[in-house]
């Protein structure tokens, strides 16, 4: 069964290209322009989340913190995306598993996704 990845970014073009790139690597990809998607996530939990930290009206870091403090979702690896240079600290602060600075190489994107999806159980980024 294909692993599923949820990508959240406020740019439709980025969602598009990331979806194509990851589908090429044989993942099932869902996308969302806002953080609203997390409210209906109980039905279908993704195997991995790629989350931009600058969402319109919301903060990806805070969403990540919520996910990591929720018993239901804390095991899902969260990788933060941003063009922001202070991304590393944000990732550490909100308990994200890893981060990827925009613009990124597609190879780097696939590598990081592969790395977390092949791990037997999720460990927080900071360890």
């Amino acid at each position, binding site marked *: 069964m294909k692993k599923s990845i949820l990508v959240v970014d406020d740019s439709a073009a980025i969602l598009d290209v990331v979806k194509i790139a990851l589908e090429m690597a044989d993942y099932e990809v869902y996308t969302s322009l806002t953080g609203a998607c997390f409210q209906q996530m109980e039905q279908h939990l993704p195997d991995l989340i790629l989350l931009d930290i600058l969402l319109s009206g919301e903060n990806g870091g805070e969403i990540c913190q919520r996910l990591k403090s929720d018993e239901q979702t804390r095991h899902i690896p969260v990788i933060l995306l941003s063009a922001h*240079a202070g991304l590393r600290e944000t990732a550490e602060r909100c308990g994200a598993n890893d981060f990827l600075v925009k613009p990124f190489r597609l190879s780097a994107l696939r590598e990081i996704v592969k790395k977390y999806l092949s791990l037997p159980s999720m460990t927080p980024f900071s360890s």
Partner: protein
Amino acid sequence: MDTNANSHFQEHTEPESASHSLLETHVLWMTDEQTTHAFIALDLQWQVVYLNQQAKEVLRRTRGELLGKNLWEALPDYVGSPLYDYCRQAVSSDKAAQFEVKSPCSPKWFRVNIFPSPGEISIFFTEITAWKEAEERLRQSEKRFRALIENSTDGIALTDEKGIITYASPSTARMVGYLPEEFIGGRIFGRDDYPDGGEATRRLMARIQQEPRKSQVLEFRTPHKDGTLLWMEITGINLLDEPGVEAIVWNFRDVTQRKQLEQKAAAAKEQLEVILQNVADGITVVDANDRLVYVNDVVAHWRGFPSLAALLAALQAGKVHRHEKFATWDQWGRPLPGSERPTAKALQGKQAQALLRYQDNATGQFYWNLVRAHPIFDAQGQVQFVVTVYTDVTEQKELELRKDHFISMASHELKTPLTILSAYTQLLHERFAAEGRQDAVLQLSKMDDQITDLTRLVTDLLDISKMQAGQLDLVQEAVDMDGLVREVVENLQPTTTRHLLIEGTARRPVIGDRGRLGQVLINLLTNAIKYSPHADTVVIKVIHTHHPHETLTVSVQDFGIGISQSHQQRLFERFYRVLSEKDQNYPGLGIGLYIAHEIISRHGGRMWVESAEGKGSTFFFSLPVREAKESVLWT
């Protein structure tokens, strides 16, 4: 022996004495053997007919050697002496005489009285050596005092109780262009002495008259004979009741030059004060103990006082503390310790400058100041004062911050389309590669390279705005410099034909931000490659040294076009470009080295360059090797 100089001939004033008989003279001068006077009687042929005991001692002869003998034959030493001359003169003029002579054979002085009378000559000798010596001492003493008074640059004058001059030294007269005698009989003060029409000098005179033996001093202006006005410092003392003086003694000193200097200094001070009070900058002066000795109105206003006087009064009353009013940060937003204030640094003897941010604790308002402190040294080279100038740059700084914010936002906004462009280019690259479309793959690679360059430029601009805003965050981690150098070289080697050689080893990790240090290495290596188009190699050296502190130095050496001396100093400034005809072919924004330099500085390290035009350049950076716990404060 010259005795003439000390003797004088004086005619006796008693005419009748010429007619005294020898016997009368005997009685008159008490010729008995007990008298202290020496006496000899002679006939007109100078034959000694009588001499008393003292005469033998005075003339140093026995009675037998003198009595019945011609005086001058018995005393050949005396022939031609003043005694001989005076005696002969008295006898030939037949007049009694008195004169003083020094003995030709002893250091004694005698007063000699000679009384010629018909048929006889009487000569009396009275020893006056002690009196003569006292007189000489007095004469010498007076000569010394006179020399002292007359040669003194100060003027000395004596007046009576009403101020009428009885004596004026030549220097007194010289000072005001008169002869001493022109002064005598005049008044010590003119009627209209300046600057108050004589009021001060009248008061001085009154005080002196009322308070004997007490010195009184006054500075006043008095006209020189040539019409110019002189400043005089006069000291008077009432010695009217001092026996032998009985005068008011005045001492004059011409202080015109000093007064002129004082006036010039006062004028210069006033001029300076006007300048200091009218500049837009705040100015403070502290003494060596950091005590405030001056602030201009600008500083007083900043501190909420209407004037300098009000501020100083409040400080003295202890109502305000100097450093309480404002919270202070450095330009990177770190709280500024007192010892880091430019004034504190200047107190250590070094000029200091800093861009500081202040917050008024009362109003909460922020200010930016460019603060420059200059030490002023005394003759021994110790700091005497520190002058600190505060230039309010709040407006410029806010404008700069807005500009930096704009650049930051713009760069950030640019990154989204760059991410999309980059990702689609890579997708297409993969797709065409899978289809074996090599021409398209090549074109897309070129496109990808350009996107990478553009991304780096945008990242640099973003870094610059962060540095300016003090938001460049550095991570502290142990960095294996050997590994980092290797990694950077491995990444860059495929992009260049230059051979990138690594020499040396770091041995120990440094504490720093691996990503940022990698950025510095990439910058130095890409520059080395870019500016040495005809060279074969670029050498990267890693050197670990222990002296004076444990330091890791990395150098990147190229064999390219080099940099002239004049450009080397400014190379690390923001937007500085070495623009000359021959290197216009090298594009760039002039920010890479600035960023690299900032990153190294923020690591507590140092970056510098050694270069010669046409021979190449070597860029160095050194980092202190520290334990993580003693690392510098990074924000």
